[in-house]
């Protein structure tokens, strides 16, 4: 008959895998935060919590990351804003308003777009967007928050489009006939019935896009210019929290400069954790509107 010993062994192996895996998974989430704080402590001792609120001025001994916080948001928010409209329009096109022959290819196009790595988007941005911005902007080298924002919008769109598209299709299935039979056109049904009903999925998509926009490194690193400042014009350059971590890593391990990257890391951790929790809470609300 069956080899009982080997069956028991496989069961045991599986059980071990399960528990080992879970412990790893659970441990990691906290160890990341703890490790970051632990390593950041020596630097916090010097500047205290002011590191989050100060501006960067090495001459005066100030290593605050406020300029990075500002730049992260000045790049992420417009990107999500533009990306939202682009993605919603595209998703509506693919789900309902588009011509029969264009609907399926448009989804295939988005699938391809989502397979393109961030680094390739950033790379293309360096050679196509930066010169373009350099030409239309009166000042600057082209490496600017505008370049980064534009490419970021393009980067987060495929994910948002998929989210919006899935929610709209689901909503369409149940509500389309009900709307049409009352004399509504396809677009009226879409705008007045389907989209309000898909609100949850749409909010989720926005949060996801926001998370990606704040957390993306390569695009801000390669396109935004990396100067530590408070860029006011879209053609100026700036440095985000993520880019700062990537750039300072090569510095002296004991300098206060170095400590600032842990401050960035902790801040990014907290922001994305809050976004994750918020997006989950919003998704749980019921679908009545």
């Amino acid at each position, binding site marked *: 008959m069956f080899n009982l010993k080997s069956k028991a062994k496989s069961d045991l192996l599986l059980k071990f895998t399960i528990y080992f895996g879970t412990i790893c998974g659970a441990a990691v989430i906290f160890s990341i935060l703890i490790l970051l704080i632990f390593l950041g402590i020596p630097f916090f001792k010097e500047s205290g919590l002011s590191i989050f609120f100060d501006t960067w001025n090495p001459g005066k001994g100030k290593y605050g990351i406020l300029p990075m916080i500002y730049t992260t948001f000045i790049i992420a928010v417009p990107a999500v804003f533009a990306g939202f409209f682009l993605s919603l329009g595209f998703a509506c096109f693919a789900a309902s308003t588009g011509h029969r022959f264009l609907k399926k290819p448009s989804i295939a196009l988005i699938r391809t777009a989502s397979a393109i790595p961030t680094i390739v988007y950033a790379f293309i941005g360096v050679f196509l967007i930066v010169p373009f911005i350099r030409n239309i902007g009166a000042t600057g080298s082209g490496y600017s928050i505008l370049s980064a924002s534009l490419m970021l919008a393009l980067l987060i769109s495929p994910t948002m489009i998929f989210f919006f598209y899935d929610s709209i299709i689901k909503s369409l299935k149940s509500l389309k006939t009900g709307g049409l039979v009352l*004399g509504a056109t396809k677009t009226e049904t879409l705008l007045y019935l389907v989209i309000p009903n898909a609100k949850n999925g749409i909010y989720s998509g926005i949060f996801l896009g926001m998370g990606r926009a704040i957390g993306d490194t390569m695009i801000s690193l390669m396109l935004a210019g990396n100067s530590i400042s408070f860029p006011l014009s879209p053609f100026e350059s700036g440095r985000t929290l993520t880019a700062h971590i990537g750039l300072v890593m090569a510095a002296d391990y004991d300098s206060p400069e170095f400590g600032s990257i842990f401050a960035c890391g902790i801040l990014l951790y907290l922001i994305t954790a809050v976004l994750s929790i918020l997006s989950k809470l919003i998704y749980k609300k019921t679908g009545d509107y």
Partner: protein
Amino acid sequence: MKIKINNLFFKYKNINILKDISLEIKKNKITAISGVSGAGKSTLLFCLNRLYEEFENTKVKGSIHSFLDNKWIDIFDKSVSLPWLRQKTGLVFQNPNPFPMSIEKNLYFPFRLLTAPKIKSKNLKTEIITTLKKVHLYEEVKSRLKMPASSLSGGQQQRLSIARALIAKPEIIMLDEPTSSLDPESEKKIETLLKELKKECTIIMVSHSMEQIKRISDHHIKIENKTAYQLY
């Protein structure tokens, strides 16, 4: 006469559902349609407002002419606007399908459309209340108009669906087994409603109950073996 159906054929996935149907629906009368399950009663209704076009693998042959807006219209003509046709030829489904919003918003919905009946905005609320009274639902929901429509019972939802269809002010209204999920009292109310309504609309009703048909219908069509027989 309101509708003339000539030699109508309906195919779904290449299977004939309806064969060579020729009928006349009289104006301002209640016409009942009966037949066994799956005989094609709902299909016939879907033809009258071209709803079948929203489904795949459907094919139709023949002609249907309806007298709408004081003109005879060939409803299969390419120039006919579908939303307009569907507003004129309303349909209430067998299973109530309230929109996932409040009762009030459900009823306001037809007013937001391009095909909405021309009513002044200050009269909208009165229009809604009148229609709710017509379907004998007003007393039951007047205190909770802002509650979600999904909180109503099945019978109430059905009456809400009928009210919503009536708000669009159709000339023809088709109801697919409107009282099958209602208790006898609600059923009686709906039957009274339909009898009053026929002065304004032409009513086509699918029903399984012979008693109901005898009670309220002026004409009776039976669908059997893919053809229609006008019984009276």
